[in-house]
Every structure is written in structure tokens, then in C-alpha cells.
């Protein structure tokens, strides 16, 4: 029986449910001490002096002078220091590191830092430091706007969002001897072990042997993509200086105040339409607050801009994007990666276009939805695996949308809808330059998958094993999955961008086919007994038709897209303006589910995060720092906040993916916020911003 397409037993084992699975904080090493980060308490200025108000005996203390290589976290740019030298650019920026075996003494240690303060910049609209600019041009938008029957304008705002993985960040750095050289092993809660390697090579130079081992990871959602490199660097410096294993575990407050968040965005739309509902011109301006360092902002902006026109056909489009500096902690990767911001904007804009035209918003979407053969804003000609109309029609039919919405007229209930899409894998030529590799090892009992792709709850181990099992024609039980250890596995690229199943799964499929040929009819065990072990390693080859020009932002932005339509049914308390979601129907097409139950879990979980983004999750910034850095007043959805979820998975296979699979992880994040806000609009609230808290809704003027 094939493993793909069925909800086989997961490779995680029972450990997560018995408490025996080991997360970073569950692991100790002999002689281990604890590390702590001393951070800036001003948003901008210079360090004047540092004084230790404690007995430093027994403490390991590290500052920037201890850095032997380069004091920069090597990511897209090398602008962010591991430790402040003099200039402070944001609150909670790391300045000093302390370590001690007694955690109470460590936490009680007081460091007095004097600063020369400077005036901080918090408003991205006032910022003149631009990290990245993007300009996508198609046709003649200015001319088409001038000749349109109607031009609809709107400004849309989205706030920060905190990941709230339930396991805060944490790593342990362990000194180890590798062939007589003093090296370090990092055990940690990380999404991208090889990103940590890159950052640490920059920090230490080429000398110390470094490896990174992923421990069981309690959620990531993008939040453990880049920041763990910083923490690993800190722990490694303390470990090499003290000669002892050093554990750094952030508590919730530190994790929320210091680590990355979703970029806040301001998106402005001017859309030209004809009286009969055709979009003829889109002019879109995207501004994202990057925070104090570049981190991943250029690529977040890129994905945001590419998705900014929504899943709609239009011959004349201009999308201008910029991400800018402010004196706030850097924003970074978060599930959806720029697209939830811009797709929120375009979907509320679509609703307002329908309102302005007096045509039903479902009809306006139907008229303009992308079809196979249409071209996107970057000029990409879409293929047969384009399903905007399919998901829209199914969502409308399944929820009896038009009749039900009409029936709610005059009540405090309403339905709202959003249509969205999400490109899978790295953007443009990204997958080509990544050169991801995956390896299969023959073992005495079967095969072992050896990749750097991390299991962070989404089912990496299981879906990869399913793909290998069926491609090799061996039982699923005979496939094991190696724990990611950079010294032992192939660099399969980061576990991000909805690429793990589709891209790394594809390389594994090809490895399995090559291995099958070499086995020549023997089972892995038979082959191993006769000839011994061997491995197959292959590199990813993106489809050869992908053409992308990074200078002009023209071409095939993604090999394929997932498609979704969400319908939110809500109720608003007329006195308190609290919104209660009653039901959310998520119709999503992502090629083909490798493991239906895990896929459903991705949609349900992503939808929950999207509902939190829409209604609850407000980061309050005060003097450049998160003022509500605790779960008491930064609230994510609980069981009592979540509506009934109705998930529908439609299939439209992508020929370049393993067994037709597309990426799925991020797609469900894009839809809930606009669906909820469009329902609010139907109730008469002119909401153009999220989170749509009661205070915000109360202040909104009527739509009609």
C-alpha cells in the first residue's frame, strides 16, 4: 500500500506525548553553566561606560573585545553585531554576556550601563534609510488609471505579530575536541542549522570546528529562522571562553522583547476598474518597517510585493515597495513572509471596489481571478495548476455564501470572504542559487534520510519518509530519518518558505529513484548484506522553464502557487464591539497532500494564527520596545476564541513536486484576516487595519 496520500503513523514516535522528547531546556551536560544576555535599555545612543555591580568571581564575562572573527551575524548583510561595540540601535540589543553555574547568582548580577542617548526614529514613514526598494512594472498603469471608469483608493495597515512558539528560544553550546582542535557543538531549537553554521564561521573565522544539532523544537513559524544564529553565537563565545557547556534559554519576556516579529506594513492601493467590474490598473505602494538591522527584510519585502496584487489578472500594474530602518528590534521571518500584509490589503481593497461598483464582491473576484494562461504582475504566465476559481467557487458553494450572507442582513452576524495565493519555495532564482542537497544512506535494515530539514511540528520527518518509501518501493517502516546534525547531514537549505516537502521532498524522490536503480531489484537489507552500505546525494534542479531577472523583477517568481479561499462567519457584540468568529471555512489547493492529517493540521494551525493576527494579537510599542511582552496581555487564540474550522483540501497536482505536492505551510496564514475584516465591512464597519480590536472597530466609521 502506498504511504503517500495516507495518514501513516508519524516518525516522531510517542515521545512528544510522553514527555520523553528532549527540547533544548531538557538537556544538560556535565559541568554545564548558564548564560545570560545583558541588553540595551535605550532605543538609540552610545554606550559610555559599563560597571559590574556584583562580585564577578566565578563568572565568565564576554563582550565584543572577545570576538576573534567578525562581529556580525552573517545573513543577507553583515550589519547586525553579535554584541554592541558602542552604537545602540534598538531596545534589548545584546551588549554583554555573563555565565555562571548558579542561575540565581547569574540572574541577580547587576550591570550598570551608562549611555549617551540620541533621538530615536520610530515612524517608518519618516525613515530615509531604505534597506531595499522594489519596483515591479507591467504595462502602462498610469495611462490605464487615467482612462478607467472608476479609481478606488485605500490605505491599509497591519501591525507587528509575535510568533509565540510555546517553547521560547534556547541553545546549548558544548566545547568539543575535533581531531585535536578546540571546537564547539551547538544543540538548539533552530529551524535552519546551516544558517547558524554560516553565522558562526563569520564570528569565529574558519578555525574552530563547529557543528549544529537540532534538538526537538517547540514551534518555529519563522521565529527560529534567523535569531537562533545570534543566540548560538552568544552561547558559543561563553563556552569557548569558559571551556564549559553553556546553556542560554530565554524566558518568555526576553523572547518577546528581543527577538523578531512580523513586519508592520502600510499598503496603499489605487485601482482602476471598468463599470462592469474588470480591473484595468493597479498602483500599489508597500512600506515595511524593517527595524534596526537588515536581517531578512529585503526578501520579506520581495515576497510581499510579488503577492501584493492578489490572485487577480491585470495588464497594467505598478508595485513599489520599500523596507526601512527604525530604532526598533529587527523584524524578520514569520509564516507568510510579507504576503499576509499585502494580501490583507488587496483583499479589503477588492471588497471596497465591489462596494464602489455596486457589484457583489464574489462576482468581482470571479471576473478578475487568475486563470491558467494569465500573467501575474511579474509577467509570469500561469500554468494548469492555477486554482483561484476552483477554490472560490467551492468556498461559495460549500458555505451557501450568498444566501446565508443575505439572511444575516440586519443582524449582528455576517460572512466575509478572501481569495489568496502563496508562492512555494524561494523566490525567483533563489532555489537555483541555494543548491540544496539531500542524501539517502543505505543501512542494514533500510534507508536513512540525511538532510538539514528540521521537524518543527509540521511533519518533515513523516512526509519525507513517505516520499522515499514510495519512490524506493520499500515499506514506510524501513525508512528512518536522521536528526539534523550539520556534521552528518546534507545541507538541504533552510526549513522555510513552504519548501521542505516540495523542494527537499523532490530531491529525496530523485535520490530514491537513483538508489532503486543501484539496488537492481534487491531490498536494501539484501544489498547491504552482499555489497555493504552506500549513499546517494543529489542537488536540487529547479524546473528548467523558470526564468527570473532580479534586476527588473520580471519573470517566474515561483515554480507554483497554492490557492485558498476563506469564508469567515462572525458575530459582533453591539455594545463591546468584540468579534466572535463562529465558523471559518478554509478551501485550499496545494497540489496533493502527502499526509492528509498533517496537511489539515497545517491549515487549521495557520488559520488560527491568521485569526489571532486579525483580531487579538496587538504588539504595543513604547519607546521602541514591546510593552506587552507577556502572554497575559499579548493574547493568542485559546480554545474559547477559536471558531469551528471546516477545512477542504482540493487537488491540482504540480508536476514539479514529489507526487504532485506543492508547498503548504504558509498559505493558510494569508486568508483569515481579510475574510474577517470583510465580514466586519458587511456589518457596516469601515475597517482597514488589523488587529481589529474592539477599540479599533468602535472608532471606525460606517461603510454605508
Amino acid at each position, binding site marked *: 500500500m502506498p504511504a503517500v496520500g495516507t495518514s501513516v503513523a508519524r516518525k516522531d514516535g510517542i515521545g512528544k*506525548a510522553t514527555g520523553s522528547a528532549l527540547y533544548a*531546556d531538557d538537556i544538560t551536560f556535565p559541568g554545564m553553566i548558564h548564560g545570560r544576555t545583558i541588553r540595551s535599555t535605550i532605543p538609540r545612543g552610545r554606550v559610555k561606560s559599563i560597571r559590574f555591580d556584583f562580585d564577578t568571581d566565578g563568572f565568565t564575562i564576554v563582550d565584543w573585545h572577545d570576538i576573534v572573527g567578525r562581529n556580525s551575524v552573517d545573513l543577507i548583510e553583515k550589519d547586525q553585531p553579535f554584541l554592541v561595540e558602542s552604537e545602540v540601535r534598538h531596545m534589548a540589543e545584546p551588549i554583554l554576556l555573563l555565565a555562571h553555574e548558579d542561575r540565581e547568582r547569574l540572574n541577580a548580577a547587576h550591570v550598570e550601563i551608562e549611555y549617551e542617548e540620541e533621538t530615536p526614529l520610530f515612524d517608518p514613514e519618516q525613515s530615509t534609510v531604505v534597506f531595499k526598494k522594489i519596483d515591479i512594472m507591467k504595462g502602462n498603469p498610469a495611462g490605464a488609471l487615467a482612462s478607467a471608469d472608476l479609481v478606488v483608493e485605500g490605505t491599509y495597515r497591519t501591525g507587528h505579530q509575535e510568533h509565540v512558539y510555546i517553547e521560547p528560544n534556547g541553545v546549548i553550546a558544548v566545547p568539543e575536541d575535533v581531531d585535536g582542535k578546540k571546537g564547539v557543538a551547538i544543540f538548539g531549537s533552530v529551524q535552519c542549522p546551516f544558517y547558524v553554521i554560516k553565522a558562526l564561521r563569520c564570528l569565529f573565522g574558519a578555525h574552530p570546528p563547529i557543528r549544529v544539532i537540532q534538538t526537538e523544537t517547540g*514551534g518555529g513559524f519563522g521565529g527560529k529562522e534567523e535569531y537562533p544564529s545570534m543566540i548560538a553565537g552568544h552561547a558559543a563565545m561563553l563556552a569557548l571562553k569558559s571551556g564549559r557547556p553553556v546553556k542560554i534559554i530565554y524566558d518568555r519576556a526576553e523572547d518577546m522583547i528581543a527577538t523578531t516579529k512580523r513586519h508592520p506594513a502600510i499598503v496603499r492601493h489605487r485601482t482602476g476598474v471598468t463599470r462592469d467590474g474588470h480591473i484595468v490598473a493597479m498602483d500599489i505602494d508597500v512600506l515595511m518597517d524593517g527595524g534596526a538591522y537588515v536581517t531578512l527584510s529585503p526578501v520579506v519585502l520581495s515576497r510581499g510585493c510579488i503577492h501584493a496584487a492578489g490572485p487577480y489578472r491585470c495588464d497594467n500594474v505598478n508595485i513599489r515597495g520599500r523596507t526601512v530602518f527604525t530604532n526598533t528590534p529587527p523584524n524578520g521571518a514569520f509564516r507568510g513572509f510579507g504576503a499576509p500584509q499585502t494580501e490583507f490589503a488587496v483583499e479589503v481593497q477588492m471588497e471596497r471596489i465591489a462596494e464602489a461598483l455596486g457589484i457583489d464582491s464574489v462576482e468581482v473576484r470571479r471576473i478578475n481571478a487568475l486563470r491558467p494562461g494569465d500573467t501575474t504582475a511579474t509577467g509570469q504566465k500561469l500554468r494548469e495548476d492555477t486554482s483561484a476559481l476552483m477554490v472560490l467557487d467551492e468556498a461559495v458553494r460549500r458555505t451557501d455564501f450568498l444566501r446565508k450572507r443575505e439572511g444575516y442582513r440586519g443582524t449582528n452576524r455576517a460572512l466575509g470572504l478572501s481569495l489568496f495565493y502563496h508562492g512555494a519555495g524561494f523566490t525567483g532564482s533563489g532555489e537555483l542559487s541555494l543548491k540544496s542537497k539531500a542524501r539517502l544512506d543505505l543501512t542494514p535494515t533500510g534507508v536513512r534520510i540525511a538532510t538539514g530539514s528540521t521537524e518543527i511540528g509540521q511533519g518533515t520527518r513523516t512526509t519525507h519518509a513517505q516520499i522515499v518509501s514510495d519512490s524506493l518501493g520499500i515499506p514506510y517502516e524501513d525508512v528512518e530519518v536522521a536528526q539534523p546534525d550539520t556534521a552528518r547531514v546534507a545541507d538541504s537549505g533552510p526549513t522555510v518558505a513552504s519548501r521542505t516537502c516540495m523542494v527537499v521532498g523532490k530531491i529525496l524522490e530523485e535520490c530514491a529513484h537513483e538508489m532503486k536503480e543501484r539496488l537492481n531489484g534487491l531490498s536494501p537489507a539484501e544489498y547491504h548484506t552482499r555489497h555493504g552500505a552506500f549513499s546517494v546525494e543529489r542537488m536540487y534542479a529547479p524546473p528548467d522553464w523558470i526564468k527570473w531577472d532580479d534586476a527588473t523583477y520580471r519573470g517566474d517568481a515561483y515554480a507554483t502557487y497554492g490557492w485558498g479561499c476563506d469564508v469567515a462567519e462572525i458575530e459582533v457584540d453591539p455594545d463591546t464591539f468584540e468579534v466572535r468568529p463562529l465558523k471559518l471555512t478554509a478551501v485550499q489547493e496545494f497540489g496533493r497532500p502527502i499526509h492528509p492529517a498533517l496537511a489539515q493540521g497545517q491549515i487549521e494551525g495557520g488559520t488560527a494564527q491568521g485569526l489571532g493576527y486579525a483580531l487579538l494579537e496587538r504588539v504595543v510599542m513604547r519607546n521602541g520596545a514591546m510593552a506587552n511582552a507577556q502572554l497575559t496581555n499579548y493574547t493568542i487564540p485559546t480554545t474559547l476564541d477559536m471558531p469551528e474550522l471546516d477545512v477542504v483540501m482540493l487537488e491540482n497536482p504540480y508536476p514539479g513536486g514529489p507526487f504532485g505536492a506543492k508547498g503548504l505551510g504558509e498559505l493558510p496564514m494569508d486568508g483569515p484576516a481579510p475574510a474577517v475584516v470583510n465580514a466586519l465591512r458587511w456589518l457596516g464597519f469601515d475597517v482597514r487595519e488589523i488587529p481589529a480590536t474592539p477599540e479599533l472597530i468602535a472608532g471606525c466609521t460606517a461603510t454605508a
Partner: protein
Amino acid sequence: MKFVLNGASTDVMAHPMSRLLDVLREECGLTGTKEGCGEGECGACTVLVNGEPVCSCLIPVAQVESADVVTIEGLGDDHPLQHLFMNEIGAQCGICTPGMIMAAIALGPSPTLDDVKIALAGNLCRCTGYSAIYRAVLKWREMSDVNVSASATR
């Protein structure tokens, strides 16, 4: 400090104001109980004290003197609810799972969906959206209710 831990009497040397969570993890070596927030909001540290689910990050160990404390390890490694959490994908990343199971285990027989939601309202999960957790818990209660009625008619 003496109390009953997972059925066995235990004596720990700890400051009476130490958090029960730290005593369990560090003195007793039971790391299945997790810390997610340290302020009783996320429920990842849920254990049973005299049969009631509580956040062990909020409880000083002095408060459990001579009490009956059950952690996730007390359920063993073959409890049907543990298997259901994995098979129904009620666990994704798994960090909330031990606390979630300890909160669910205290549910009475034949719970409705609303009973389950209320029982788990103090336990945050960021991965699943909770639907799969309801499926796991309701299936488990259906199974155990069937077992109860089967043994009652025997």
C-alpha cells in the same frame, strides 16, 4: 519536603518557595513538564495536584507538601490518550502536549465538545488551532466510556 510523585513517596531538598515546576524538572529529573511562559498563561507546565490540573510554574513546592502530584511521566508511555495525540495530530511541535494531556486527563466521562474547550482553555497551542486536540480527546473519552460501560455490564 515530602509528597507523592507519580504514585511514589518522594522527599526533596528544596527551598519551600521554589516553583514546583523547577523542583520537578531539576530535582526530580522529570523534564516532561514544560515551561512556556512562567506566569500561568500557557499551561505547558500543567500537572495534577490531588487530581486537579494546575500550572506548576505558579505553585511553590511548599504548597504540595503531602499532596498527590502526577506529571506526564506518571501516565507511562502507552496511555491511549498519548497515542491519540500523536495519531490525530493533536501534537505538532509537541511542547504543549504534556500539559494539554494533563489538563484533558482530568475531564469527567462523556464530555461534550464545549466541556473539552473549557477544560483546555488555559492551555495554549500555537500549532494546531486546537481542532485536532478535540478530536484526540473526544475519541479517547468515547473509548474509555465504552470500556467503562463494557465492564459495568460484565
